């Protein structure tokens, strides 16, 4: 599903953000990318949705390889991904419903299918009753739910979430986490970058820990750890 093979990413100004990183996230998995800020979590996610390409090594996502992919193919890959950010990235002047519909409209979905699909995901994230509200009228947790609904509306294979709970209080965090678990249970893989160890410890999941751009721990490689960690 997502495969990093000896991936190094150098940024001209700040230096290496990832060094020789190798890990694999399987189909339908729930995976955490964890580590301190600056450890390379966001870089790893950016490589997954092709906002950047690796300096050396290869990233494969759902059959697409960073080494053989043209710029024109990127939109095709992104339509199979759902992407969620810490700061929600909603359009302020559009309602929740319009924000979600936007993702379908700009990818050329048929008009008649948009309404029902939008309502389905808004119901899934528990916001059907607030479809006509604007982001500023919603709480942080609700805004993140709208962002998740937008990420889900194209039926992605993977949901990529970069610190999705970073701006939320504890209660909202638990809610979002539960939502992500439910999404994962219905078959969508989830890759969540977070520095919050409480979240990581709160559930069983594939765990990849980064430090200074290097993979220092991968629970998939560590059979004993996975067994002892399992309650």
């Amino acid at each position: 599903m997502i495969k990093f093979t000896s991936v190094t990413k150098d940024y001209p100004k700040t230096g290496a953000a990832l060094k020789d990183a190798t890990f694999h996230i399987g189909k339908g998995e729930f995976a955490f990318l964890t580590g301190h800020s600056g450890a390379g979590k966001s870089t790893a996610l950016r490589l997954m949705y092709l906002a950047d390409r690796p300096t050396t090594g290869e990233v494969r996502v759902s059959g697409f390889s960073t080494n053989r992919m043209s710029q024109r193919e990127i939109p095709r890959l992104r339509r199979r991904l759902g992407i969620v950010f810490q700061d929600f990235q909603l359009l302020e002047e559009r309602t929740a419903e319009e924000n979600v519909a936007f993702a379908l409209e700009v990818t050329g979905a048929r008009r008649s299918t948009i309404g029902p699909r939008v309502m389905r995901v808004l119901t899934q994230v528990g916001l059907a009753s607030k479809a006509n509200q604007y982001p500023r009228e919603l709480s942080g947790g609700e805004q993140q739910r709208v962002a998740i609904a937008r990420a889900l509306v194209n039926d992605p294979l993977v949901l990529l979430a970069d610190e999705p709970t970073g701006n939320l209080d504890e209660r909202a965090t638990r809610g979002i986490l539960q939502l992500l678990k439910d999404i994962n249970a219905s078959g969508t893989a989830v890759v969540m970058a977070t520095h919050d160890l409480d979240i990581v410890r709160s559930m069983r999941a594939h765990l990849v820990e980064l430090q200074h751009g290097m993979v220092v721990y991968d629970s998939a490689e560590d059979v004993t750890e996975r067994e002892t960690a399992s309650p």
Partner: protein
Amino acid sequence: MSLVLRETALAFKRAPLLSALSVTTIAFSLFVFGLFGLVAVNIRRTIGDVAERVEVVAYLKRGTPIETVTMASADVEAFPEVQRVAHVTEEDALARARQDLTEFRDIFQDLETNPLPASLDVRLKPQFRDARHAAAVADRLRSYPFVDDVRYGQEWVENLDRLRNIAGAVAAVVGSAFALVAIIIIGTTIRMAVLQRSREIEIMRLVGATDGFIRRPFLLEGLLKGLIGGLGAFALCYGAYALIDTYLLRASFFTSAQALIGIGAGGLIGLVGSTVSVGRHLRNV
């Protein structure tokens, strides 16, 4: 396509102030250019009016048979520079002199013999009304044996040439400076509109919209703003022209082709400005 139209309409609706501002900016920068254009058009017309009077006159020797003159006249009319040739007989010349030179009427009345020579008045085609071509035609006329003398007001035709060259050079330099300023201002305005929606562009890219799809509403928006700005500039120019024509001096306005080109240029600048700004932006996100 309907989505592109809808998104474009939304862009105007959501940011009415910025849209109005950019349309106004475009209108005024094109207006300045248009004013300059008006000045250029009028100077050109005035020079054209003066050039109307460029005429090569070949005075004929007394007693030249009329058949010879008629044949020569047809011959001269076939010169590539020549628009038309008028044969002025001695009597015509006298009648014209009596009419034009009223202060000497008495002298002309009392004449016993007509002192004025017959002539061929040669009018040149508009594009040949300059010193070089007038001189060339004059030289050829001189070669006819029955031609006594040829005049074409050499000195003032040369002055006219000089004036024309200066006006052309000034128009080219000042005109391109104004056009450049207009393009820069319009480009900046459109870049602001694109920047204002950078978040939208970013989200479109993240959800997998193609670059072409993202570009289209911006291009349409740029084109519309340019066209509306162009229309505004046209209206302003017309207003300025009407004021000048009524209160200051008789002036002429753009031909409809010129006006259409001006408005079209507004649209084109808007389109190109958006293409450049969005392209630059798409590379960054």
